[in-house]
């Protein structure tokens, strides 16, 4: 059986089906359930209610703000099959199916504009935490790199240039710009 619904993460669809199916055995029952889910999604403009997301997934705060940097970080980490659906990113990473949401309309955005992360509730918490620590570290490093490249490029437009660069022991980069 397969259901194709646009603009909805694979994680949510498969989880909804398995959560709704329960002990159903008959093909007819499965078909009715999938029709019910389809109808609910269509009524909701193909978006899943945040309360559904929260009931089947664990919610975590993240340091991720910039979508491009997050996507680059996931790619750097060798993540396969990243689905980018506007304000939502879903991927599989080291056995975890993870969704990142930044969608105020559905109550899944942090007030400060950070992505929230949703992972299926039966995941190994310790392994997940270690994974997220590694990804967060890579993300912040990528953020530093992007800031560096952006600043360097944009200084030219202001007729300014970097006169000195220094990398400190803590891996901070100090740029010195002379002002006329």
């Amino acid at each position, binding site marked *: 059986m397969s259901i194709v619904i646009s603009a909805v993460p694979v994680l949510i669809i498969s989880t909804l089906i398995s959560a709704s199916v329960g002990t159903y055995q008959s093909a007819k029952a499965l078909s009715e359930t999938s029709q019910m889910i389809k109808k609910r999604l269509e009524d909701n403009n193909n978006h899943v209610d945040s309360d559904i997301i929260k009931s089947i997934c664990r919610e975590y705060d993240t340091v991720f703000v910039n979508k491009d940097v997050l996507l680059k970080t996931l790619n750097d980490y060798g993540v396969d099959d990243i689905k980018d659906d506007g304000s939502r990113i879903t991927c599989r990473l080291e056995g975890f199916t993870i969704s990142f949401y930044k969608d105020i309309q559905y109550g899944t955005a942090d007030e400060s504009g950070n992505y929230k992360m949703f992972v299926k509730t039966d995941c190994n918490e310790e392994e997940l935490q270690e994974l997220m620590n590694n990804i967060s570290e890579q993300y912040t490093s990528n953020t530093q790199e992007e*800031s560096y490249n952006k600043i360097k490029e944009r200084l030219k437009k202001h007729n300014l240039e970097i006169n000195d660069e220094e990398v400190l022991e803590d891996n901070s980069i100090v*740029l010195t*710009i002379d002002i006329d």
Partner: protein
Amino acid sequence: MKKQLKIKLLPNGEIQMKTHGIKGKKCLKYAELLRQLADADIVKQEYTKEYYEQEEDYIQTNEQQNLFEL
């Protein structure tokens, strides 16, 4: 004193900037510059003693005027 901007990019993604040799409120325009350079939001702003100082040429001009008046 040479006028400089020192922009520090921290490994955690934060950006700090300090102005050197820029006295008075003129330094504030560089906060806007940083915002434009880095697409960043300013989360904290502190004033050093230079903010409360005046440019040396302005002080000298005042002293010369006083001399002429005498």
